[in-house]
């Protein structure tokens, strides 16, 4: 209860014009990056990561929270108006949003998307605020062996969640784990894989990994891609959106049903708590569920607002869910929470069970900003600048990528004022680029890199405590719980596969 009160008292921080500016700026930047096809809010956050060195932690985390929320809803703008999802999480929104646009109801579709985002984002944030302290208390029950099993569970789930690409994901995770082993050993004074380079003694820094993986690799992907969005830009020029059409009529909301919003948000929230699942899976599952339970499933994919509501409620609720494992166990749910984890680590804060009790004052403002973004900034941004957002697609790409590259490379210099980190960022960018080009998911690499040190340490500590007996992972109740949970996920994700629907296949 104390934590909930702390979160609500943190709203007063938003009265500070500087903090409010950063939160609003974060939201606008997140929306712009999410709306432009090919760019993501993850990229925006990666570029802004170096700047968090100079901000205080609360402000940096609040800005991150607003970028995250904006990133989930911003993609719906181009998904609806020109059928190109700005972000992967808005893929399902395009299925019903674009047909509505073709019927001349594009603004209404955006209104439904914003309402769904607002509802899902708010419910996800409220659940996070209400449940995170309890999860943190429960996480105190997890001891060393349980922690190893939990981290192994996270990596295994993120690998097997990559349907049809399990070997690729496994290899990517191994590459991440390899990167994590570079530098001084955690338990003995031995350096590993540094090959005499003193810059590597402390290990590979998080900053160049994030900037390389998400910013430099993205620019290289765009440069190697022959995708031309000039047609989309031309289409965007023709789209006319009027503010008065944004507001969804009450009859539409009744038709969708409050139950659909709640159910989709809950699906999104719980999907968010799973490592590596992310907004795309949340909106996919919520859309499937909405279609399955609908009285008129044949209208899905033809402009049914319920599809938009389900998809957007779910992907914004993911924001709240994904922060639960990040804050309580230090396990990021998706790339954006991985970067937020980076912000915490850069500022010397170690996520984990103690975080909610020892440094609740730093976390509470971030959750307040998340809720504020969902309830206030989503509708306000849509209303004030919604009619112009579609023009974002027309931004000159050459200048945009020039700016991104400059920010990325100079940003990697900021941490240590060393060109070594800049070269590391370039190296990581090249690695991530080739991984992506060959179908290896970079999120599993990133998760392997982030979780690797703890995974190794807890494995060694667990076996040291049990005199080298590996059965300790099955005899310890907390560990056994995660071992069984891993098996349940393997059963549902690998052995038993869900059936496909024609509309969803079209979405893919």
């Amino acid at each position, binding site marked *: 209860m104390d934590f909930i009160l702390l979160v609500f008292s943190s709203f007063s921080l938003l009265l500070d014009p500087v903090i409010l500016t950063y939160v609003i700026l974060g939201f606008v930047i997140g929306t712009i990056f999410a709306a432009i096809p090919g760019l993501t809010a993850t990229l925006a956050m990666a570029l802004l990561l*170096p*700047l968090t*060195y*100079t*901000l205080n932690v609360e402000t940096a985390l609040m800005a991150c929270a607003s970028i995250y929320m904006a990133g989930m809803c911003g993609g719906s703008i181009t998904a609806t108006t020109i059928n190109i999802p700005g972000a992967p999480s808005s893929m399902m929104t395009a299925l019903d949003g674009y047909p509505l646009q073709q019927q001349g109801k594009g603004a209404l579709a955006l209104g439904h998307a914003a309402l769904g985002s607002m509802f899902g984002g708010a419910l996800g944030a409220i659940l996070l605020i209400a449940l995170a302290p309890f999860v943190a208390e429960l996480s105190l029950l997890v001891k060393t062996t349980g922690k190893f099993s939990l981290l192994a569970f996270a990596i295994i789930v993120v690998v097997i969640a990559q349907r049809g690409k399990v*070997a*690729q994901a*496994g*290899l990517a995770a*191994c*590459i991440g*784990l*390899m990167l994590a*082993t570079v530098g001084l*050993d955690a*338990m*003995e004074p*031995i350096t*590993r*894989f540094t090959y005499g380079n003193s810059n590597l003694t402390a290990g590979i820094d998080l900053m160049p990994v994030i900037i390389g993986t998400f910013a*430099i690799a993205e*620019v*290289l*992907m765009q*440069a*190697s*891609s*022959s995708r031309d969005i000039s047609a989309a830009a031309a289409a965007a020029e023709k789209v006319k959106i009027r503010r008065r059409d944004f507001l969804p009529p009450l009859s539409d909301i009744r038709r969708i049903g409050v139950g659909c919003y709640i159910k989709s948000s809950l699906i999104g929230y719980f999907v968010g708590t799973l490592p590596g699942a992310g907004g795309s899976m949340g909106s996919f599952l919520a859309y499937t569920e909405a279609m399955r339970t609908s009285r008129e499933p044949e209208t899905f994919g033809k402009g049914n607002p319920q599809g938009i509501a389900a998809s957007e409620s779910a992907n914004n609720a993911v924001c709240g869910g994904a922060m639960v494992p990040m804050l309580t166990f230090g396990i990021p749910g998706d790339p954006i929470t991985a970067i937020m984890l980076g912000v915490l680590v850069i500022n010397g804060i170690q996520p984990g069970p103690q975080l909610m009790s020892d440094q609740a004052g730093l976390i509470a403002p971030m959750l307040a900003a998340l809720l504020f973004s969902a309830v206030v900034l989503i509708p306000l941004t849509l209303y004030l600048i919604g009619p112009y957002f579609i023009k974002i697609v027309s931004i*000159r*790409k*050459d*200048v945009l*990528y*020039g*700016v991104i*590259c*400059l*920010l990325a*490379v*100079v940003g990697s*210099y*900021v941490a240590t*004022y060393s*060109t070594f980190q*800049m*070269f590391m960022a*370039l190296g990581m*960018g*090249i690695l991530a*680029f080739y991984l992506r*080009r*060959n179908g290896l998911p970079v999120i599993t690499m990133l998760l392997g890199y982030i979780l690797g040190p703890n*995974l*190794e340490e807890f*494995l*060694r500590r667990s*076996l*040291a405590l049990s*005199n*080298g007996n590996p059965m300790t992972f099955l005899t310890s109740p907390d560990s056994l719980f995660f071992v069984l949970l891993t098996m349940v996920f393997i059963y549902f994700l690998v052995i038993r596969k869900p059936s496909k629907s024609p509309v969803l296949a079209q979405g893919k």
Partner: protein
Amino acid sequence: MLMNRQLLFLYVILAVSVGYLISAMSLGAPTDEGRLTPSFFPILVGAAAIVFCGVLITQTFRAAPAPKRSAEPPRYTHLWIVVAIFFYILAFKTVGYFTSSGLFVFALIVLFSSFEKLIQKALISVAVVLAGYVMFQYLFGVRLPTLWG
């Protein structure tokens, strides 16, 4: 077909994984009196990477032959960008932020567009570099290398 772009990538990763495993093994025995040593985990990871590489190489061999490439010429812009970033980093501290960044942003804008309207692009580059300087130096208090110290 023993060599295509994807296989080449997998061979490189396989070679790195084998090198990693050998380096890990050179750290010493994986266990010592029942305790795990610093080499245990890297050996495990290196071996797993080799297994995954093996699986993927086998899968690629077994897969149906790739469809014929489109008539579109291959794009190498990404390689030029890597070269540009490399030289930018080399020049960053010695030449200073302004000159190196100006040339870098200009090169990128040209790489992402064409060799037309160069004066306009040069002016945009100058504006971007100045905006970057103001943002880093004054807004965020980052000391950027300049020729005047």
